[in-house]
Structure formats: structure tokens, C-alpha cells
């Protein structure tokens, strides 16, 4: 499948979009840098190593920790529902809503729910799911998908937002951001108070506590999980960590890596329905544990580290490719470097074969990943898999022939020198017309050298021999 070239070109040609992406990511880059510096966080690298080790241990023993999580959730009065697919998760919620006579639920930000098209599945059966995170709410009204893992409406201006509110809610066209926010707050407050079900995601699942941890800045997750009578949390199975005390590592990394905040405004540690002595909180708690292909990623020992991701978005912010093409040019809800490595693993390497190659392998992502996922290494692994697929499909022949030929030339120095002297060594590396034409579309080609270094050396040696 081919890259969305025209869409990428369109994004590159849109100066407003380019400025929005660049400045938003630059701000996040600078904020992060300020709080992980040697002065601010001297043990930052130790934390990364610890986070990687905890995730590795947990993923390598995932069944154990999921069972421990489950038994602790049950011990605190909650229920656990394992869901192989998004449809199973949606079906459970629809069923529960029907039993309880619920027609509307409120929802806080959850990339996992985007992944499974949760809202659409519910809406098909007339269960209204209201996004309450401001950015997600705007996108819901605008029928768009998130542009960035942490900053979903990064690509929209205040004028876009004003138009959305006017078109979808009949509001007066208001372009002052503070007023737009107040307006959304008022609309959503009603929903929080009316809804009988609140759905959240989970940043972490705590095995020894049967708890979900949800971090946020707005307060909509707190409201979604505290005001309605029922709380449903949806999370991928990979979100589990062994102990509440492990949060000392992860919470010290997550906010800093994502937005440069040592802690986000609200961190909720929720374990089930309210206790007998508590005054408010939900009466029922359900934890939906989602597979949706994660067990497939688990099967590959080298690439299963992709499941360590804590969805901070740092890799997106630092990726020079993401910062040019933006979130919507990636084929799935997960964009940027993490998207590039998990999309082929979830969807199969034969889909979107261009994706692992849309990287210069600069390594900026790996440098900032709080859990030390070796993203460039996995991209190369995926490239090998794509090449292998193409070999079996007997496509991509020309490129394969070129590399094979170059390998042969590079191991036969005399031939290499002969071709070099003919000035044609580089040409067999890539097919003649295509790549040279592509280079030329953006840059001038380098001037060929009068003589290679080999030739210069040979003549120098010849000169010194001659003179002795």
C-alpha cells in the first residue's frame, strides 16, 4: 500500500498547520527538557531504567499480574470483564446500559476507546457517549479523530472551534478561547450530573491493589468517575504494573515526559465502588480488560517491548517526521513513532507497508521514551519483515536486486574500483530513474568527484613509489 503522498504534501504545504504542529510540539519539548534536566531530576536516567525493568518483568509475566489484578478488583467489590475485541467491550456496556435503563454516558479521554471506535459502536445502538475532555469533545462534535496522543485538537484554531460550536450546538460564534472553554464547561457539567454511567480509560492498572490510575488536567475524569452511579474503566491488558509503589517511578516520568508537569493536576487512584462509609462515588465498578490484538504483539520476544508504552506522547513531540506530517497522516489512532511500530504489528506488515520506512532513524524518539522502547531498532526489524513480504510477493524486485548487487560489488574490491572509476558505484544501490528523480525533486544532486579517494591514494602511492 502506498503512503498518502498527496495528503502528506497537503500537510507540508499548509503553513498554518505546519506552524501549529511545530510550535505546539516545540512547547512540549521545551517543557519536558526543563523538568528532566540534571538539575531538575538528577535520577531521570535511573527512573527510565527502572521503568523499563518493571514493564519488562510485568509483560513477561503478564498472565500472573492480570489474575492478581482481577482478584483484587473483585475483593474490593468490582467486576472484571476480559474483552477480546472492541465489539465485546461495547456489547458489555450496551448490555449493562440496557439493564440499568441508561441512555447517555459521560466519558473521559481514552486512546484505547478511540482504538476500538467505542463511541460509534454505542451510538449505533442509541447509547449516547459524551466526550468530556475539552479537546476530545470538540473533535467529537467535529467528527474528527485525535491529532496527537496528548493534545488531540492540536491542529484546530479558535476559529475552527467557534465554527464547530456554532454548527453543532447552535451557539453564537465566540472566538475568545476562555469563553469557549466556559461554554463547554457549562454544557458538559449538565451531562456529568445527569449521566448514570461514567467511562474512563486507565493510565495504569495496579495489580496488588485492584486499582486503576487516571491522570488528567481538566477534572473531567474525576467527574466521570465520581458523579455517576456506575464507573466503567476500559484499558489494554498491557497497562498493568505490579505494585502501587511502582507509581513512584511511573508518575515521576509520565507527566514530565508528556507535558513537562512533575504531576498532572489530578491523579486518581480508584479501586472499585465506594466503600460502605464513603458518602459519594459509584455503586458499581467494572474494569474492561482489552486484548484487541495485544496478545499478538506479545508473541514476538523482540518486539513485545512495544507494549511498555505509557502513552506519554514524547516520541511524537520529538519526531522530526511527525512534526512535519502531523497525526492525521498516520493510518491509525496511534501516530508518531509509537504508532509506526505498533500499527504494523496490530494490522499486519502487509498493510501500510510504507509506515516503517517513514523515518530517518534519527533516534530522537528512543532518547526520550520514558520506558526505553528501542523504536529505531524495531523500525528496522519491521522493514526487514516488509522486505521479506515483498520477496514472497515477488514485488520490490528492483530494490532487492540493487542491494544484492551492491553487496556483491562491495565484497569484490577490484570490481568496486572498476565501477568507481566509471563513476557508477552509487547507481546500482538504487534504481536509476526513481530515486534520483525523487532526490532531484527537493535538492540538487551532488557533483561527481573527479577522482575517488581510492584513485587519489593509488596515485599518491604511485608517486611515492615512482620517486623512490
Amino acid at each position, binding site marked *: 500500500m502506498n503512503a498518502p503522498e498527496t495528503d502528506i504534501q497537503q500537510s507540508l504545504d499548509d503553513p498554518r498547520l505546519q506552524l501549529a504542529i511545530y510550535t505546539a510540539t516545540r512547547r512540549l519539548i521545551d517543557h519536558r527538557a526543563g523538568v528532566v534536566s540534571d538539575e531538575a531530576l538528577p535520577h531521570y536516567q535511573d527512573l527510565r531504567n527502572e521503568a523499563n525493568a518493571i514493564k519488562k518483568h510485568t509483560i513477561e509475566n503478564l498472565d500472573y499480574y492480570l489474575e492478581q489484578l482481577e482478584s483484587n478488583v473483585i475483593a474490593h467489590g468490582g467486576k472484571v470483564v476480559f474483552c477480546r475485541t472492541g465489539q465485546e467491550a461495547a456489547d458489555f456496556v450496551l448490555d449493562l446500559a440496557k439493564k440499568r435503563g441508561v441512555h447517555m454516558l459521560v466519558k473521559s479521554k481514552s486512546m484505547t476507546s478511540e482504538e476500538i471506535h467505542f463511541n460509534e459502536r454505542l451510538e449505533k445502538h442509541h447509547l449516547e457517549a459524551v466526550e468530556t475532555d475539552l479537546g476530545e469533545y470538540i473533535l467529537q462534535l467535529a467528527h474528527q479523530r485525535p491529532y496527537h496522543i496528548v*493534545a488531540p485538537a492540536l491542529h484546530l484554531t479558535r476559529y475552527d472551534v467557534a465554527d464547530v460550536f456554532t454548527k453543532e450546538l447552535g451557539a453564537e460564534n465566540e472566538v475568545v478561547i476562555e469563553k469557549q*472553554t466556559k461554554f463547554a464547561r457549562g454544557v458538559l457539567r449538565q451531562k456529568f450530573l445527569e449521566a448514570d454511567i461514567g467511562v474512563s480509560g486507565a493510565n495504569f492498572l495496579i495489580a496488588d491493589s485492584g486499582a486503576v490510575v487516571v491522570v488528567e488536567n481538566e477534572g473531567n475524569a474525576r467527574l466521570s468517575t465520581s458523579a455517576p452511579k456506575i464507573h466503567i474503566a476500559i484499558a489494554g491488558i498491557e497497562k498493568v504494573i505490579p505494585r502501587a509503589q511502582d507509581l*513512584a517511578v511511573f508518575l515521576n516520568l509520565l507527566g514530565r515526559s508528556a507535558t513537562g508537569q512533575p504531576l498532572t493536576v489530578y491523579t486518581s487512584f480508584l479501586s472499585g465502588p465506594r466503600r460502605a462509609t464513603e458518602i459519594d462515588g459509584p455503586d458499581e465498578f467494572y474494569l474492561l480488560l482489552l486484548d484487541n490484538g495485544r496478545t499478538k504483539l*506479545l508473541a514476538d520476544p523482540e518486539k513485545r517491548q512495544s507494549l511498555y508504552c505509557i502513552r506519554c506522547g514524547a516520541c511524537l513531540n520529538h519526531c522530526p517526521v511527525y512534526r512535519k506530517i502531523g497525526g492525521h497522516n498516520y493510518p491509525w489512532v496511534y501516530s508518531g513513532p509509537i504508532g509506526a511500530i505498533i500499527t504494523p504489528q496490530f494490522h499486519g506488515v502487509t498493510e501500510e507497508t510504507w509506515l516503517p520506512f517513514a523515518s530517518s532513524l534519527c533516534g530522537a524518539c528512543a532518547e526520550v521514551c520514558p520506558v526505553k522502547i528501542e523504536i529505531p531498532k524495531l523500525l528496522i526489524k519491521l522493514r526487514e519483515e516488509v522486505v521479506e513480504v515483498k520477496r514472497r510477493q515477488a514485488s520490490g524486485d528492483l530494490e532487492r536486486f540493487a542491494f544484492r548487487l551492491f553487496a556483491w560489488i562491495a565484497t569484490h574490491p577490484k570490481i568496486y574500483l572498476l565501477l568507481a572509476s566509471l563513476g557508477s558505484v552509487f547507481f546500482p544501490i538504487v534504481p536509476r530513474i526513481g530515486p534520483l528523480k525523487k532526490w532531484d525533486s527537493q535538492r540538487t544532486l551532488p557533483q561527481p568527484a573527479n577522482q575517488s579517494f581510492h584513485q587519489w591514494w593509488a596515485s599518491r602511492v604511485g608517486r611515492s613509489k615512482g620517486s623512490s
Partner: protein
Amino acid sequence: MVGEQGGPVERLFMTSREQILGDIRRSLKRAAGQPPLFEAAPLSAPRLRIPLTDRNLSVELFGQKFENLGGKFFRVRDTLAVVPAISELLAQKSAVASNSPFLRKCGITGLPQVHAAFTDREELKAACAAADIGITSVDYALAATGTFVMLSSHNEARLVSLLPPAHIAIFPRSRILANLDELLSILPRPADQTSSMVLITGPSRTADIEQILVRGVHGPGEIYAVVVDDE
């Protein structure tokens, strides 16, 4: 056998739970009921980093961090000084107070514009939705980040610090801890105590539109901390 692959027919009779756990075990080459392995992927004891701090410096640090976040910090000598310190904030406003004994001690619950002693969830919700200010104590505060730590209990309901557009937290300085690591050190399993532990670090905010910061999106946009020194 549960946990084994089974053919497609057997899978039909396996629950999702069995299928998922079975798939995981197959991928990891683990058996059902097997304890976690530590050799290839060790798990160390949690490493908690708690700086040594002087009690006095903790209060100051908390105050600094709190104000950096946009909160307003009051430090008062004793419980009698609390009401005078916040009287201006409460003037012409309606407030809901939690059932924290410390608030009673500080004379908050006796004030005319303060509604307290809620035990019914719906009444509490309605009162909080209508109130201008929510007044609570805290279970702990974290100096390093200017954070309130609130555990849901019969003394502290969740919605008091969440629904009203302003939140005042009044607490003795003895509840201030150094940082998150210290909190987890004294409270290794919050779920043993409560269904909800919330860390509140600053006023509710968003930068979702053009990365411009706006306060008070869903949670309180104005937050106040009153620390009582001699407690």
C-alpha cells in the same frame, strides 16, 4: 484443557477470559498458575526516593510550589486564625464543607454560609453543584509538588473538592510530606483504605485550544491552601 490452545471448536467454548489468558501464556511460554519468573526479567523492591527535609522548609516549599501553580497560600499560626484568614474569600459566597473533624476544629462548619454534615450522596451532589466554594481538609500534602492528597472517606467526600468552582483546603502542617515517594512509603496500598485517592496539583486547566492555558475547565479554577502551623 483451560489455558491450552484447543482447536477452533474448543475455543468456541472458552470464555474470553480463558482465551486471552491462554493466548498470553502461549506467547510467553508460561503455564497456568505459574508464579512470576524473575531471572530473565527481575523486579527489584520499589526504590522510593525521599529527600530529608526540615519541617519548616517543607511548609515553605509547599507554599512556593502551590503558588507557582496558581494557587493562593495562607500560613496561619493556629486554628483560631483560620476563619479570619479566609473571611474575605467567603464573603457573599455559599460554601459546602466536608465532614472533616479538623474543619470543625477550625470553626468552619459553624459559619453561616457554610453547609456541612452531608451524608446523603444526592443531597451532597446538589449542594456542591450549587455552591461557590468547596472547603475540605486533606489527608496529606506533598511539598515537592504543592499537591493535596485526598482519600475518600466519611470525613471527605469526593465532590466537595471537585464540583464548586473554588476549593479551599485547610490542614495542619503535620500532614505535609516531602513528595510522592514518601506518600507511597507510608501508604503502600491506598486501596486498603479507600476507593478513591486523588492527588490534586494545582487548579483545573486545559491547553487544548491553540495551546492557550485556561483555568477552571471542569474542576475548580481557584484553589487555596491554609496551613495551620502549630498542629
